[in-house]
């Protein structure tokens, strides 16, 4: 096991920010910590990075107990949410700042920094002020500043949350690319389920300081272990079937039809067009409000008030109690 967190807790007075956090990470794995704000995910990587001393538990990295090691001695590096680029230094100075403490000569450091900057296409911006860069560029500089140290674990604290949606998708791809090229182990904190599902080898869903579920993206999306995980990972219909058992369906698992017999009937209440998909809100005969997604090209174009059959395409497993 490369990185291991053993029953790690952080308690502030009466408030437990993180409780009994237990996780094993393989070398080269990309783990996403996913959860709502205040769930303890940033505290967790803060403890791994050495900024927050844990109240309890051990952190083992590469067979070495690093729990008591100060941040500057740890072979980890953090990319901060707001980048924390030193505003009084140029791009290259920021990038090579950490190399100084690794005992690398100034000339060598500069060469290495440039090489790394080239990886994200920013080598020409070397001597610019960091404050003059765009958000996306700053983000990449922060990433490179950490990567250049070749840390054993790279910690990313919501690194894309300050960027606009389009840029986010591009940078997400870039991070994934860098990860597969360098094979570096990453812990990535986010509250965006789409980001977590798209990036991670494994997702750790957190809530109120505890791990709710851990697993590969597809598995936790399809087999969420409880209602919290279900609704946090995406929209869901909670449906009571004829036998009175609760079942869960994702909107894309519902199909509306007029010429086939479905599970039940319903009335279209609202239609929302959002580009690639069209979402129908349907009130079933038993009074439940259901959402159904149709791909735009296959949109049957129902009107509000239309009566439709609701077909359940494929069932998501019910939550394990």
């Amino acid at each position, binding site marked *: 096991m490369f990185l291991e967190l053993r029953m790690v807790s952080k308690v502030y007075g009466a*408030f437990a*920010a993180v409780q009994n956090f237990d996780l094993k990470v393989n070398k080269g794995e990309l783990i996403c910590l996913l959860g709502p704000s205040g769930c303890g995910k*940033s505290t967790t990587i803060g403890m791994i990075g050495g900024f927050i001393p844990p109240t309890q538990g051990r952190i083992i990295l590469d067979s070495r107990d690093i729990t008591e090691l*100060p941040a500057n001695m740890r072979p980890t590096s953090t990319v901060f949410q707001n980048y924390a680029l030193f505003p*009084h230094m140029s791009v290259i100075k920021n990038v090579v700042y*950490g190399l*100084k403490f690794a005992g690398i000569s100034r000339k060598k450091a500069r060469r290495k920094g440039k090489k790394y900057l080239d990886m994200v296409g920013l080598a020409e911006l070397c001597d610019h002020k960091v404050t003059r860069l765009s958000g996306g560029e700053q983000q990449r500089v922060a990433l490179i500043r950490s990567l250049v140290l070749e840390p054993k674990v790279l910690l990313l604290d919501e690194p894309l949350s300050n960027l606009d949606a389009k840029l986010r998708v591009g940078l997400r791809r870039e991070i994934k690319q860098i990860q597969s090229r360098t094979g570096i182990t990453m812990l990535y904190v986010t509250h965006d389920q789409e980001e977590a599902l798209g990036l991670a080898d494994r997702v750790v869903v957190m809530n109120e300081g505890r791990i709710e579920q851990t697993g590969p993206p597809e598995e936790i999306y399809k087999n969420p272990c409880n209602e919290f995980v279900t609704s946090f990972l995406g929209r869901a219909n909670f449906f009571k079937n004829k036998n009175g058992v609760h079942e869960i369906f994702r909107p894309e698992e519902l199909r509306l039809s007029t010429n086939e017999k479905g599970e039940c009937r319903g009335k279209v209440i609202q239609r929302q067009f959002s580009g690639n998909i069209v979402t129908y809100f349907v009130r079933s005969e038993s009074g439940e409000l259901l959402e159904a997604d149709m791909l735009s090209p296959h949109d049957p174009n129902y009107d509000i008030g239309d009566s439709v059959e609701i077909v359940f395409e494929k069932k998501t497993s019910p939550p394990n109690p």
Partner: protein
Amino acid sequence: MKYGETRFGASFFPKGAPFFPSGEKTLYFLILASVFIFILWPIAAVLFKSIFIQGQVDFSEYITLFRNKKYLLGNSVLVSSLATFLSVVLGTCVALYLTHCRGKGKKLIFGVLLLSIISPPFVSSLVYIMLFGRRGLITCKILGLHLNPYGWHGIVLMQTAGFTAIAALLILGILHRVDRNLEFSAHDLGASTLTILRSVTLPLALPGILVAGVVVFIRSLSDFGTPIIIGGKFTVLATQAYLNVVGLYNMPRAAAMCMLLLLPALVAFVIYRRILGRFDYVGTGAQLETGRKRIRLSRGIEIFLALVTWGYITFEILKYGTIFAGAFTRTWGFDFTPTLAHLKTLSGTKLESFFRSLRYAFMAGAIGAVLGVIIAYLLERKKIAGGKALDFISDLPYIIPGPFFGIGYILAFHHPPLMITGTAFIVVVNCIYRQLPISIKSGTAVLKQCDPNFEAAARDLGAGEKNVIKDIVTPLMRPAVLIAFINTFTMTMITIGAIIFLVSPETKVATVDMFGEIKRGRIGAASVLANLIIVTVLAVNLLFSWLYVRKGKKDRD
């Protein structure tokens, strides 16, 4: 969920770093000790002196004060209240004119305000004598009146003239922060401009207005010079405290008077801490607003504000003009022939005093700025034991009346273990600690804008505590040091309230010389000194502001 909320999207440490090497602890202990010795101990010394007479607890000084001299406290509070009210009203008008009116000459107005807060005290009093005195240019020469100008009304007027600028700048600072969209939306909802000012703008600016009130009230309470010069038979507590020290050598009485003076000041201080707990004024520095326009006030209000503002500014310009003219007039009031003769008074000891002032001011500025910024860093970024106490004590000098702080130093440092009265050291230290609240505030203001993650990131990249301080904190704090330096330098150059009690013939400074000349009625010589101080302080201020602006520009490029 308090923690979770503050944590999200913020930093790993809203406060406090994890490791606290012992070198820092030593430094912290030294700073804490110095704050106790140079702030708290002098205050305690005044208290002790007033209640221990010949080794016995004795409240007779207070009894005498309340029996026979009750009018003194009444006079002090009356004059200060009036001056505060007038300054704040005038200041609000000037600030509103600068933010909410269109019109030319705003830069001039702003410049005059800045000039006014860096002028030595008593300039107003000096001008008052020159213009409205028995042989005043306006009352006697132009209007041909023979009035007795001395009395409380003169004090109120001249304090108002002197304090309006600081009030205006403090209020201006908060008016800038009133969201203009709130005013627009009130307007949109149908409110008239007068209603907007009354119901939106001024209530939102109220904390700033109150702070201005507190600052002016305390300064007015501490001012003993103006009543001496133009009060005539009318006298106040601060003046009596001063006279009891320098004339009557009655220390217990002076101490008791100081304590009495502290009473209203403490009330004001409590209000001030309450307000400042929620806002930051000092340190950010007022600026002239540029950019998008605010709502258009109605014609009537605009004309009113313009009249008040320009009335005040005209008086201020007249004031500086008079001072300038006074330096080159043979005998003001009798013989208005131009002359360079007064410049000759600037020889020998006077020039020495002036250069001594400069030296002290540079020293106090440099040391005070560094000290203030270090304390700000400790308070803002480190979880330190006693942080609250340190914060409170170091804030006290802001409200301690000048004479109190001076007399406290005499009493505290007149005998062993720390016998430093009469030295240059005591003067410089007094100025450093007197301005410490502002030095700290300028540090905290800068730190609040700096992400604590800068330091966390440096540690993360491998920097030890030493490198974090050297590579990250020091460069980022440079603007704070600059502001704190300018403030302490300026105040040391122009202050008199506390240090007049501390200077010996060997450590005399320019303001004390100037005060002496005014008291002796040597208007020409006093004017020369006033001009010299004003020009020097102005030059240093401009130089350092230029450095500050240039640095800012370089950072943005």
